């Protein structure tokens, strides 16, 4: 096989013959669904502030509610359908973060609550925590140097 066509030539051929995603359609869908989820978040935030909570506390409670919404929609087997349609519009918001934790928790229940749910809950979201927290430590150190 290698005598007739090189690996590079074959990979170019594969690139040519592989159908591409409908980029424009996908971007519109991601934009609209992502934007709508943010509107929901804004609405919840405003509602909580109007109940008398401070801005910072309201922000935290909004986060918790959005995480719950994502978790709940995952639990009733709906979030994957949203994801199929919206792509990044459902992955990027914090509801997607919740989905990436709840979906393995559900999936690996068959391996038990300790070795399944507990151990494997973070296999998708883990990197977000590792890199996010590490970045915040480095940012904090820089900030310390800056304000000294």
């Amino acid at each position: 096989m290698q005598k007739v066509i090189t690996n590079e030539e074959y990979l170019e051929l594969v690139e040519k013959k592989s159908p591409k995603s409908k980029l424009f359609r996908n971007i519109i869908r991601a934009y609209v669904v992502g934007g709508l989820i943010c509107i929901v978040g804004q609405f919840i935030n405003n509602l909580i502030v109007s109940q008398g909570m401070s801005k910072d506390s309201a922000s935290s409670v909004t986060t918790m509610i959005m995480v719950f919404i994502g978790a709940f929609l995952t639990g009733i087997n709906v979030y994957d359908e949203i994801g199929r349609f919206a792509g990044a519009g459902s992955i990027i918001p914090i509801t997607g973060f919740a989905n990436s934790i709840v979906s393995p928790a559900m999936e690996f229940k068959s391996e038990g609550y300790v070795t399944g749910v507990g151990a494997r809950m973070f296999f998708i979201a883990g990197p977000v925590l590792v890199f996010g927290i590490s970045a915040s430590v480095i940012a904090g150190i820089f900030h310390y140097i800056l304000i000294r």
Partner: protein
Amino acid sequence: MASKRKGKQTVYIQNPLSIISTAAIVGPKEGKGPLASYFDVVMDDDKWGEKSWEKAESKMLKETLNKIVNKSGKPMDSVNYLVSGDLLNQCTASSFAFRDTGIPFFGVYGACSTMAESLSLGAMLIDGGFADDVVCITSSHFCSAEKQFRYPLELGSQRTPTSQWTVTGAGGAMISNTGIGPYISCITTGKVVDMGVKDTNNMGAAMAPAAADTIITHFKDTGLTKDDYDLIVTGDLGSVGKDLCNHLTKIQGFDIEDKYNDCGVMIFDMQKQDAHSGASGCGCSAVTLAGYLYHEMKKGKYNNILFVATGALMSTTSAQQGESVSGIAHAIRIQNKLS
């Protein structure tokens, strides 16, 4: 000098060896496809009353074996060997399915090429004088495969256009030195072929070189041409891989296009069922062979088939290490009448 060998990768089966019975059990999605009427059982749901996807897959294999043996008219303990494999780690779907059968068991791993691999080895066992009746059987399950190789089912992710849908299906056959056909007459065993495709969402592209290589080697070893066949069918290249296989065989001087099809594009309605590039999985070629191809051969629609099941050889570890996906394809010549 091994007398049944021909050329580099081919062996001839000397004594008439027939497929005497087949069975196929599929999931709901496959039961809504164009080949639905050819399957013995369509499950109501993917768990089939079991507690996990893995247990459901084993149940599918067990029930398929029962049906194959019942249809053969022979008793279960006349089966000399079970040759089986699946996609799960350490092929546990197969080993657990058959633990109560008492039949000598060979577990094999060829990824999605397992149907042809098991038939090849089973045929060699019989023609080598080591067995009279062998059951060759394999399965795949969409949910257990996604869980092991890709993502949890409830994760909101998007499938790429080149991705394929793992078939939930178990299929197999009893082959025997009794019987009146269809006959397995010739086997071309594939070699591992890797042209550097790293995209695990484009398995068709990873496997197409192996398919083309085995088909061409079969023709070169035997001197046969596409005119000796009514149908050359690959296991699960999908629409992208099928296109690539056509191209690769053409540029090497073997144009098979007008006789060529692929189980991956036959089992689902490519327009109506969300299957992107088509079906994949050990079960794909197995249920298509056991259901559609076998029955259409018995009816005489096809008299000479080259069945080329294709497999993508990789693991989650190899993919994470940046390794490419190798391919393998095994070809089996099936004829209604031995010439």
